[in-house]
């Protein structure tokens, strides 16, 4: 769901600029009717449709064949639930006055409301033929062009708009963005440079965020155009303008890295890690920079670096966790021992998921298994972990043992020893039956064993433990669907929708764009051979994705107006990749 409220399909903001040319082709209405015509337009924009119709009819009484009035009346009617009549009238108006840009513009608006952008574009072009410099039509055309990704057309239209009205700053940004989308970085850079230069007289404290975004956007374009040094120069020269402090440092680090100025990049990344040592992206870049300086990967050196980092940031988890990736054998055992018992002591439920990537390494798996089993027996007999050098021996609280049992259950599940896993999870459940995670993990376990009904049953038991917990509700619904209990799945899922189960449940789930639910329900129908229902579900997913594409339309105006260009461009690119999204692929 978008942050912007969706406009109702037909009420489009639209102002007809009545240039002298259009006055000509309106066959010279006398002043009284001309004033009425201006009112028709005004009433349309103000959504006072009844008044608009009255004014239009007043003109038509005297001039029944006035094309533009017919068209405007038609447009107004189409907003009043009389769409067919409206379309007819617009067509009639067009027939009467085929060279009126107003008529063509209106016709285009109708097509746009119908999401028929191809035809709408054609209409707008016709409108422009009648009135080449109609800014409003040009703008409407441009938005449809970018919606349809006609980047060449979009750039050309945007150039015209800029030429017509260079005083409007968003026109500059729009043209630059258009060139950017079309891959023409050079022009984009020139445009932004010219625009930036024109700003130098302005008060620098005005609109700080937009200025900052402009700099960062120019940087983005320069990098894509291959001029990394130029990008860095802009960043350096405009340090004070960039208000997004973190973005500034990240850009600097990235650019220095790209330029091969590795030791400076390293310094930048180190200072970023000082700000946020948990950010794995920074770590990844940092490691690359180091490895490039060393001429290739060097695990020993890396361990040394991270040992230092760990000492520098003793409370940070990331260095400790990453060291588990780099180390092997006995060193791995010691580090893993420290890491895991600290998290068990804290009672962190997500511990297993955190270390799961290590399970690709058989040696590490058996080391971990030995560790976990030792923990279990030690905690069971002494309520304490086995002694470890450098670690203070403390009495553990009783729940720590339960978390170890929980960990062992997940461990054995991961290495496909389901029976042992089940034994451990059941013991954990007997120990502390009030912990939600035990139930959802047992459900997962049973699913892995192929006992889908058992899984659904235990997930439901877990759900009852906390009716306000949305996550366990989702799990219970999911397992019900997996066990082909479609009704139960639906009943469970709707508990957290707007009406909470009464009334139109399905439509609430649809509005919420609950794709996982639709996909899983569809798959359940597939399994039970109800192909029609399955197809219905998958088509819903398709509809959601079409909506995602449609919803772009509002953002073209909004982002250009606000100057949030970096976000806008990456948004457009996300939309370009949309149908590759794994949710879509799964349903397709």
């Amino acid at each position, binding site marked *: 769901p978008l942050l912007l409220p969706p406009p109702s399909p037909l009420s489009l903001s639209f102002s007809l600029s009545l240039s002298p040319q259009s006055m000509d082709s309106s066959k010279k209405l006398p002043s009284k009717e001309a004033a009425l015509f201006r009112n028709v337009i005004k009433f349309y924009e103000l959504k006072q449709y009844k008044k608009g119709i009255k004014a239009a009819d007043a003109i038509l009484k005297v001039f029944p064949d006035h094309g533009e009035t017919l068209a405007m009346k038609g447009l107004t009617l189409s907003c009043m639930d009389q769409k067919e009549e409206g379309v007819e009238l617009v067509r009639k108006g067009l027939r009467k006055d085929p060279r009126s840009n107003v008529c063509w513009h209106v016709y285009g608006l109708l097509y746009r409301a119908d999401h028929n952008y191809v035809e709408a574009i054609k209409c707008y072009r016709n409108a422009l033929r009648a009135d080449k410099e109609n800014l409003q039509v040009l703008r409407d055309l441009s938005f449809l062009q970018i919606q349809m990704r006609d980047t060449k057309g979009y750039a050309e239209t945007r150039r015209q708009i800029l030429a017509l009205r260079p005083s409007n700053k968003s026109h500059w940004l729009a043209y630059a963005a258009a060139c950017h989308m079309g891959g023409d970085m050079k022009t984009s850079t020139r445009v932004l440079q010219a625009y930036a230069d024109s700003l130098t007289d302005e008060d620098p404290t005005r609109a700080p965020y937009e200025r900052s975004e402009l700099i960062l956007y120019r940087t983005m374009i320069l990098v894509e155009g291959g001029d990394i040094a130029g990008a860095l120069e802009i960043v350096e020269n405009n340090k004070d303008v960039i208000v997004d402090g973190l973005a500034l440092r990240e850009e600097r680090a990235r650019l220095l890295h790209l330029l091969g100025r590795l030791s400076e990049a390293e310094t930048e990344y180190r200072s970023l890690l000082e700000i946020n040592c948990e950010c794995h992206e920074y770590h990844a870049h940092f490691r690359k920079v180091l490895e490039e300086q060393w001429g290739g990967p060097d695990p020993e050196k890396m361990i040394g670096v991270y040992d230092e980092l760990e000492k520098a940031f003793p409370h940070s988890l990331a260095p400790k966790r990453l060291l588990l990736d780099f180390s092997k054998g006995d060193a791995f055992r010691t580090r893993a021992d420290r890491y895991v018992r600290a998290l068990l002591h804290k009672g962190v439920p997500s511990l297993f998921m955190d270390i799961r990537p290590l399970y690709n390494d058989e040696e590490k798996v058996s080391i971990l298994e030995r560790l976990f089993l030792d923990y279990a027996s030690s905690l069971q007999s002494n309520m304490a972990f086995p002694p470890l050098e450098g670690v203070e021996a403390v009495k553990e*609280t009783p*729940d720590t043992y339960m978390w170890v049992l929980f960990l062992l259950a997940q461990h054995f599940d991961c290495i496909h020893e389901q029976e042992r896993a089940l034994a451990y999870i059941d013991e954990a459940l*007997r*120990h502390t039956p009030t912990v939600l995670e035990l139930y959802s993990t047992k459900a997962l376990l049973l699913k892995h064993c192929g006992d889908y009904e058992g899984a659904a049953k235990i997930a439901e038991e877990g759900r009852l433990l906390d009716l306000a917990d949305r996550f366990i509700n989702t799990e219970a619904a999911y397992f019900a669907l997996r066990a082909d209990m479609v009704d139960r799945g639906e009943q469970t899922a709707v508990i957290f929708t707007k009406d909470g189960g009464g009334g139109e449940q399905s439509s609430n789930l649809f509005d919420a764009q609950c794709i996982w639910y639709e996909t899983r329900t569809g798959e359940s129908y597939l399994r039970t051979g109800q192909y029609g229902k399955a197809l219905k579900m998958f088509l819903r997913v398709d509809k959601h994705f079409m909506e995602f594409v449609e919803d772009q339309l509002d953002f073209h105006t909004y982002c250009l107006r606000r100057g949030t260009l970096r976000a806008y461009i990456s948004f457009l690119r996300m939309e370009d990749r949309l149908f590759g999204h794994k949710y879509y692929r799964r349903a397709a």
Partner: protein
Amino acid sequence: LFVVAMGESGMHPLVFTEMSAKVIGQVKALNAAVFPIHYDDSFYDSVLATPHLTRLAYHRGILVGAACCRLEREANQPSKVYIATLGVLAPYRSMGFGSQLLREILTMVQSLGGETVTQAYLHVQVNNDEARRFYERHGFCVSHEIPNYYVRLVPADCHVLVKDLTSAGPSSSA
């Protein structure tokens, strides 16, 4: 209602809340693990009607103990509080949680406006020495025995343990 009590495990204070409909499943799971008796839905319905007479005890985010009481007002008799259930999960016993729960209940009962509660009482199976000793430590005494109180348990008899609430002031920490 959130009350934090520092007990023996000062590092991890117990957090007390009242029962609510959304977590009733947790309480059912706890009671099923702790008590040999099964409490049916009507029991929990009546408990939910007076949530202020319940206390749930959370240790490090996990529900480990729960207590449910009833106020009994008979004609021309002073009010009594009946402790219907009070239990702590087995691995979490001997940490003072039961005592804290009981103190919570008794404090709550004695700060109820509008009536003076003169007595607290409960039933303990005759062979449950551990429970009986626990309550005796907190000032309860065995008042009498009821034969065949428990329909499905063996032994079926129970002790009635009683504590007079009028004598001292607010319960002193045991």
